[in-house]
């Protein structure tokens, strides 16, 4: 009983201190709770919690939020912030806008290199997603951060790498370090990077005649 009273007091105190701000929403409340409390909170709301869904009762970190807000306020609806977690921000954009966003991230926010460029194949929605994981060596606050910038390109059922619609502008002029990562992505997913000076194969043999092997429709034999 004592605990409950304390809990009742806490939100009222905070609202007194920051009376200008709007009342905390459900998600704000949920971020302050521990795991057990969160489970009860969801049950009271009538949300079904199957045991397989992991619960992340972590508060939204302030610094990461401020970084994502900068991008969101600059580009508005062109950029979609997918999540903000401790040390991780993910945002997605259309391929037409990715160069503008990338230049802004490099020049204004201090991210200076790419850690990886990952392709993810989604045959059901007929799209391939390219995810750039960007990091910073020069900005002390952002050294622990990874910013994921994702874009989607159309996916052909019968791929002709380099000759079909699966293409996106290269980020090599923005982040020089993506050069070999994009070459790998091109051979493994068949996504052509427009403007890349060296769209050759890197890891696959020169005489590889099958479809790009990291697509979902390329099956490992016997599986």
């Amino acid at each position, binding site marked *: 009983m004592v605990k409950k009273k304390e809990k009742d007091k806490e939100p009222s105190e905070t609202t007194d201190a920051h009376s200008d701000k709007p009342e905390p929403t459900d998600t704000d409340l949920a971020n302050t709770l521990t795991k057990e409390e969160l489970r009860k909170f969801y049950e009271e709301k009538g949300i079904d919690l199957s045991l*397989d*869904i*992991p*619960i*992340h009762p972590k508060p939204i970190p302030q610094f990461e939020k401020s970084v994502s807000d900068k991008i969101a306020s600059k580009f508005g609806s062109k950029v979609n912030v997918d999540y903000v977690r401790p*040390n*991780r921000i*993910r945002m997605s954009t259309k391929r037409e806008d990715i160069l503008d966003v990338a230049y802004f991230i490099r020049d204004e926010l201090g991210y*200076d*290199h*790419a*850690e*990886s460029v*990952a392709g*993810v*194949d989604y045959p059901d929605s007929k799209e391939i997603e390219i*995810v750039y*994981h960007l990091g910073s*060596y*020069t900005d002390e606050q952002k*050294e*622990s951060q*990874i910013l*994921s910038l994702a874009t989607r390109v159309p996916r052909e059922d019968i791929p002709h790498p380099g000759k079909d619609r699966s293409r996106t502008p290269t980020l090599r002029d923005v*982040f*020089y*370090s*993506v*050069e*070999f*990562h994009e070459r*790998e992505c091109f051979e493994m997913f068949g996504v052509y990077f427009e403007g890349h000076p060296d769209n050759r*194969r*890197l*890891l*696959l*043999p*020169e*005489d590889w005649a099958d479809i790009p*092997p*990291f697509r979902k429709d*390329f099956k*490992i034999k016997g*599986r």
Partner: protein
Amino acid sequence: MTTPLPPGIELEKIDERIMTLNVGPQHPGSGHMRLIIKVDGDYIVSCDPDPGYVHRGEEKMAEYRNYIQNIPHLERPVIHDSSNILYPYCLAVEELLDIEVPERAKYVRVIASELNRCIYTLYWLAIYGIFLGHSTMFMWPAGDRELFIDLLEAMSGARVTHAFLVPGGVRNDLPANFEERCLRQVNYFEKRLKEYEAIFYQNPLLIARTAGTGILSRTDAIRLGTTGSVLRASGVDFDVRKKEPYDVYENLDFETVVMKEGDSYARSRVPYLEMFESCRIIKDALQKMPKSGSVRTKLKPNPKGGNDEVYRRVESGRGALGYYIVSNNRPEPYRVKISVGSFRNLICIPYLLKGEKLGNMPAVYWSLNYWPVEADR
């Protein structure tokens, strides 16, 4: 008339002065990769690395196996550093499945990964010695490496491919009297390491062949997105263990090794100095470790990952090593991307070898701490 060979195989003659050479893929000086080098007399005009001879599709294989079955094959890209390549996978799966790791397991993991870092660095150093014709430097690290191999064998039961780190902790607890034995061997190894200084790092032969060759400036190291010892030898103070501490690294006492020169000598010296820091970490961890307790959180059978994605990274022997895992409510991951230090440092090879003498190629190439098998995955 002879049949024409496929492109890149023949000894191509471009003009009277420039000739194309293939170094590798079976050359002892390149590992399992090919360097297509164009030379003008003794000087390298351009270099085009051609990796992929040991590409095994680890990322594709991971999509067919569940989170536990993935453990043994994901360490195959670099068996000498097996704990460090599994470390980010375990961290990522733990975040995905929302698993808490026991306190003692965190310390055991740190000890295992630092022992593995020493094993890898000693192996690399041995090959660097034989590259430069210094056969003593091949024998000594290869022999001292056995100390740590024995320790990890006592911990995990296997000499090289340990598969010791698992999501939720480590596979089994430390054997009896491990702390005492580990401390004794690490103390002995530190004494041995000091002898390397006189025979190798102060050796005029090494200094003449590496100092001032393959200089990578600080700006270029950042622009090219290099990582690990290459980055720190160029004066950038970046170590994932310090900048984004995982498990218990923030409680442990160690320093980042940074050198400003950016040449092959600095790149060969940074991993050596880091071995002293590894010894410091191991000794500190042995002291601060809880003396008893659980070392593994049991997972549910065949756990499912939810609709989520995660990117975790650690500092391996070759730089930052990250795993990007996408999951879609299935026991198998939907996509696993391994971002390895070797692949990220590959971009330096054409950049650094241009204008260098052909004889300096091994000294520059192996100073990049490049492991062909890991780069190909």
